[in-house]
């Protein structure tokens, strides 16, 4: 079985481009050009150089000795938290800004939830001297004030999304509406492996540098390219797509996707899409989606602002449906404890999103000789406020 996208833009039954006609020319332009542009030598050269010198890649693959001792297995951390701007998001924004330039676009729009993708987009726009507008839910603007300030310092305009529930999905709606209103000069940098084809595939390819590096680094450290398991948290699923990418078709590598259970799967306040979602359409993609029986999209909840998306990328919907991926959901409380544990054991303060991936070890047991790579998607600086409140620091 092939777990990548097919020529029609589908992963199994998921994906496609369910977009209004107004977006068709833009999305079609991208679809026809993205593979060609990415294959150009000049593109690859510029992309690789920026990843190395600007983002700081390759990010280390770190053997977490004390964490491994505690859980009696071999745990490696892929240190995406050490990327410039503090998370894996920048791998994608670097790729997309180069794409936008080659498509002749002069105005960049993006959506953001926690603000990480907004910051990563504002950063590359500053780098390239392009105009940047970031849509952000009004409620998230209040919750994530430091990232709003960072975006402004980087020269971006932050526009509050005041429609619907005023969070990530509404910010995405507003970005799409802006693209409808500005079809000619604008490129939309989507922040995860979501949206209409070709976005999920394009973003996955930009993020695939993560597993590309893991292979090389693991070979050095363990004498083999393939771990027994790769673990990543899934909001929309971009850091997971990057960490899984080069292992998708290697059956002996177990793939573990970790979703946010929020206050518990059955609490009504959760973001565990694989458990709670049904097939539906969100932001142009057919995927698993949290919704009412009547097909209205519902508002997810997680303590981590980067995981509360009501859908999941179509690649992941297919990994779930086909059984290729193991899906685990982690509550707020477990994630917070796991975050604190990593601080104490390894001296690393993780993003709360990444803490979800770290939290699986308590219940999901591995063999002593198993090599388990956890994608540490981001650092916890942006989450200090939440950590402070939660632990009364």
């Amino acid at each position, binding site marked *: 079985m092939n777990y990548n996208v097919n020529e029609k833009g589908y992963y199994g039954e998921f994906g496609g481009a369910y*977009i209004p*006609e107004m977006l*068709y020319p833009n999305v079609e332009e991208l679809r026809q050009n993205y593979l060609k542009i990415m294959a150009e030598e000049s593109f690859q050269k510029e992309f690789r150089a920026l990843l190395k010198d600007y983002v700081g890649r390759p990010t280390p693959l770190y053997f977490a000795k004390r964490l491994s001792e505690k859980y009696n297995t071999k745990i490696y951390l892929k240190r995406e938290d050490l990327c410039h701007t503090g998370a894996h998001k920048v791998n994608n924004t670097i790729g997309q800004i180069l794409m936008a330039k080659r498509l002749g676009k002069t105005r960049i729009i993006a959506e953001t939830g926690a603000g990480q993708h907004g910051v990563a987009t504002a950063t590359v726009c500053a780098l390239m001297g392009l105009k940047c507008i970031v849509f952000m839910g009004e409620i998230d603007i209040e919750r994530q004030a430091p990232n709003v300030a960072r975006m402004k310092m980087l020269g971006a305009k932050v526009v509050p999304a005041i*429609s619907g529930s005023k969070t990530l999905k509404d910010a995405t709606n507003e970005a799409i509406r802006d693209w409808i209103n500005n079809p*000619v000069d604008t490129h939309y940098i989507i922040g995860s492996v979501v949206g209409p084809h070709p976005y999920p595939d394009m973003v996955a390819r930009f993020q695939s540098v993560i597993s590309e590096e893991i292979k090389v680094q693991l070979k050095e450290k363990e004498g083999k390219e393939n771990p027994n398991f790769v673990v990543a948290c899934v909001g929309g699923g971009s850091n997971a797509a990057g960490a899984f990418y080069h292992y998708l078709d290697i059956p002996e590598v177990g793939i573990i996707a970790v979703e946010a259970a929020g206050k518990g799967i059955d609490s009504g306040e959760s973001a565990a899409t694989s458990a709670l979602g049904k097939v*539906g359409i969100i932001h142009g993609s057919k995927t698993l989606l949290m919704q009412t029986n*009547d097909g209205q*999209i519902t508002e997810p909840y997680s303590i981590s602002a980067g995981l509360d998306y009501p859908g999941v990328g179509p690649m992941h919907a297919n990994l779930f449906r086909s059984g290729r991926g193991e899906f685990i959901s982690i509550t707020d409380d477990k994630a917070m404890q796991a975050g604190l544990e990593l601080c104490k054991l390894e001296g690393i303060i993780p993003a709360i999103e990444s803490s979800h991936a770290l939290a699986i070890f308590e219940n999901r047991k591995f063999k002593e000789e198993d090599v388990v790579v956890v994608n540490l998607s981001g650092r916890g600086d942006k989450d200090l406020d939440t950590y402070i409140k939660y632990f009364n620091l």
Partner: protein
Amino acid sequence: MSRIKEKLKQNKKLLSIYFTAGYPKLEDTVEILEQLEKSGVDMVEIGLPFSDPLADGPTIQASSQVALKNGMTTNHLFEQLKDVRKTVSIPLIIMGYFNPMLQYGVENFCKKCAEVGIDGLIIPDLPLAEYQEHYAETFKKYGLINIFLITPQTSEERIRQIDATSEGFIYMVSSASVTGSSEGFGEEQEKYFQRISSMELTNTLIVGFGIQDSKTYTQATSHTNGAIIGSAFIKMILEKGLYGISEFVSSIRKV
């Protein structure tokens, strides 16, 4: 013959109104339809509200939210429309996003439409290729016409393709914009209306998005066969209630 095709044959400038079902009050749907027909409107788009209307501006977003809060559901809309054909005879089209229809079951949805007397569907986020591959047969089976959109950016080749797939009319989106723009039409739109009109398509052209008064209606219909008003109608209802309908319709038609 379908009510839509019959209406298009009348060869006059058509006025079509969009409103959100369940707004302002949950049970207003049928009364709005009756009043629109009485006021001389040619055709109606009944908006099935959706939580995330991507192609809509603030007015329709807000009316959709209110309608959902009022308790509008797909089932309830069909329930309301059960006897609508006893009192309303103009063509009725349901306009809505694809996800609620997908959840209802596309076949089931089409069947219900046929039962209550719906003539066609406008589904902005159901693309042409998907429709042709998966749903065209079902729509035909239940006698439903699917209406496609074109925009100023749509290529000539694609317009021809859409024309070949369409029956009835093509929904011409007036400008690169979500619904509810109040900027009016300038030279750019005039050229676009002319350009499409001179393509001599098989299907009738009806313009929507940004039509708000008699001036924009006249501009939109000078090269086409009709126009659709949505946001401006919803704003009027919010201000004046259902009593304002007939006055609104005559104000559009007066030249």
